[in-house]
């Protein structure tokens, strides 16, 4: 039972860990996108 729990637990941990990393990257990209929008607005005015 311990081995099965460890194996399944590790796989879920790895998958959710990766989802967390990708979502953080997306968050950072959105931040950069906002900065780009601000620069475009400044250029327009």
């Amino acid at each position: 039972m311990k081995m099965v729990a460890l194996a399944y637990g590790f796989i879920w941990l790895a998958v959710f860990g990766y989802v967390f990393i990708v979502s953080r990257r997306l968050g950072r990209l959105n931040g950069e996108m906002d900065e780009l929008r601000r620069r475009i607005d400044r250029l327009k005015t």
Partner: protein
Amino acid sequence: MPTRTTSPRFLALTVLTAALFVIACNAIADAPREITMGLVQKIFYFHVPCAWLLMLSTLVCAGGSVAYLFGGSERGDRVAVSASELGVVFGLCVLVSGPLWAKAAWGVYWQWEARLTSSLLLWLMLVAYVLARRYGGASARRLAAALALFAAIDIPLVYFSVRFFRSIHPSNTVVSTLGPGMRGAFWLSLLAFTALWWVLFSARLATENTYARLVDLEILLDQAEEKKS
């Protein structure tokens, strides 16, 4: 700017994947216990799909690398980067879940036999690819792409190793020997994991595509600001 991760199709696929995992986990729980190994055999339902995704990721990474190396395709390069990371994640899952099963089946976590060693080698090549892309700068792109092709050559070695070498690892035909209750659970799990791979790959590729567009826009903006000043 909408990305593929916010599209209705992506959300539908995510919901479908979650539903598939609920069904697959129920099927795994209901599947009969294997007579000799008992409960620990259930590691198989997650271990084999992870091994399949390690190979799929490597193949997609190699395909993208071929498009980049020989066709100059930037999209191919982005596909390769996205797939390589998934290969590292699912490869790690294989290399952890396998030894946990092995400890119960063989009495040891690791044996330096052909299947295990070639799988470890494949995973290390993908790790090398990811590290080269992350820290090697622009000049490492072609080197990493060549490394991906080298990794793809290892796939037949991993798959056929149990046939060509003396190996204690279960053979590739083990799926066909499963009982009806076990076989259904296995295929459902494989389907759920493949759908998960597609969701993660789409999300990762969307970040790569967005980043590439962002870099292009920044260059254009720099030029426009220079002109204005």
